[in-house]
């Protein structure tokens, strides 16, 4: 981590978006942006990679479907054969329509819950975790753009003030 980082405060998401675009146009790297709410299109403007959570969601869905198929086979056919709908065939495939709602629900259940858990793990979030945001105002009405300083402090300050930052905060890291 660089010795000095700069926090630029904004109080409007549109101003922030334009500022992010201008900073990126100068080929500067934005470490992080702290927002009180999701800002549409910010990830693209910052040049973040697209999320891969959709892929995990698909895999979790497949897992849920498999669990449902195996589980219903064991419960309704093998362990305690059930007479379903007055059709005592005790065959899995012939009774399959009755299990489709279970398959659907477990697919959704696995995809949704495991996706949330994955998201928490990936974001390093857990109960009672200390908040990482540098200023409580980012949970209210302010946005912070965090940029590392590499011997260009004055230049950076001018640029950020010009983009409409309402406050600048320079943080020296003295190890």
């Amino acid at each position, binding site marked *: 981590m660089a010795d000095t980082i700069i926090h630029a405060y904004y109080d409007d998401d549109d101003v922030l978006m334009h500022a992010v675009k201008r900073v990126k146009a100068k080929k500067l790297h934005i470490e992080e942006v702290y927002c009180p709410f999701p800002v549409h*299109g910010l990830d693209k403007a910052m040049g973040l990679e697209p999320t891969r959570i*959709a892929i995990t969601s698909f895999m979790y869905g497949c897992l849920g479907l498999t669990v449902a198929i195996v589980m219903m086979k064991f419960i309704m056919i093998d362990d305690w054969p059930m007479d*379903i*709908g007055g*059709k005592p065939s005790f065959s899995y495939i012939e009774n399959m*329509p*009755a299990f489709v*709602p279970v398959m659907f629900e477990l697919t959704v259940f696995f995809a949704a819950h495991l996706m949330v858990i994955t998201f928490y793990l990936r974001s390093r979030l857990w109960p009672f975790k200390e908040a990482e945001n540098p200023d409580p105002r980012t949970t209210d009405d302010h946005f912070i753009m965090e940029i590392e300083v590499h011997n260009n402090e004055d230049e950076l300050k001018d640029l950020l003030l010009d983009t409409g930052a309402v406050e600048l905060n320079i943080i020296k890291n003295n190890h």
Partner: protein
Amino acid sequence: MYTFSNRLKIGSIILMAIGLLGIGIGFVAVPSTAAEAKAMVAAHDDGHGESHADDASHGATADHSASEGHGASHDEHLLHQLQNRPWAALYVAAFFFFMISLGVLAFYGIQRAAQAGWSPLLFRVMEGITAYLVPGGIIVFAILLLSTLHMNHLFTWMDADVVAEDELLQNKAGYLNTTFFLIRAAVFLGGWILYREISRKLSIAQDKSDDDSNFKKNFRWSVGFLVFYLVSESIMSWDWIMSVDPHWFSTLFGWYIFASMIVSGVTVIAMVTIYLKTKGYLPDVNDSHIHDLAKFMFGFSIFWTYLWFAQFMLIWYANIPEEVTYFVTRIEDYNLPFFGMVVMNFVFPLLLLMNSDYKRVNWFVIMAGIVILAGHYLDVFNMIMPATVGDQWYIGLPEIGAVLFFAGAFMFWVFRALTHAPLQPTRNPFIEESRHFHY
């Protein structure tokens, strides 16, 4: 302004001509006597396998060759089925293309009533497609009228001899009688066409006016239309489709037809939009509009499957003879189209359109759209054919001819209607939002 290219015009006329030929051959090839029908089926049996020998409704009651009388009535029945085939093929295709434009009308009404900001750029495309309501509706009405005049046996409840022996149909006669049937059809078609014409006029007038009064009027008409549509579409589905099996009923049938209708409609909107865009029209329509249409195609395909399965599972579970017969005939005699359509309408769009990026790839949307449309044609086929032609179905000249004819007529009418007004509305209050629509 859009100009109807000559290639497309000639193409649609050729489709209509070939289709007409197919329909004509279908009608000419129909047997006129029971003996002829029997000979046709016997000649066909080598390819078809056991076909009608173990037909559920007859084979189950008695060995039909045992008694002379029963054998004769069976041949008579076979004759009716073969005579029905060109009519049923015509009706399925006529209804399918009519249903597309009615689905688009419902989608359009929803966009108007919701005051959606993303879609106004596509309103003229939708209005072009709904223009087919007039010819399509008249053709469907004509077929229904000919049925009531006993030109065909699509609807068995219209046959006085059948009703005389059938207590269930006698009890339903207060609703299922030809006069009331035609009145309902006329009222529904009139209402839909009326809304379409009014909304179209207001939409064009809005471009030239200097306030939003036409837009607001259009909103009110659309809300009213949706209320009317909700009821009339449901009753229409009982009348025009469910009543070909007059003993059978399903309470979610209206929804089921609606799902087919709207997914086909949205698919055609996407296809026409992409076509116009590749020809250089609709410059402001961007990838996000196509993406949204593809999302609707994906979502409504799942919705259709949900209703298809909900209808099937309850009947399968309860296992009441008068209800399951509907699915028994479809699974026994129509196995391939019945399950094939589930693959085409559910598995295919599910896998193809799940990925967000694929919904923006135009040729992907077109390919998925073709499969979805074919799947929903099969859906209508599976609803009409078992009750009208029984196990004597085949997708041959009459069926393909009817599809080609109505596809040509649909294209001709829709693209002709698109030339009548500028393709992009100019004074819709949401047009700027639609232009900048960005996912």
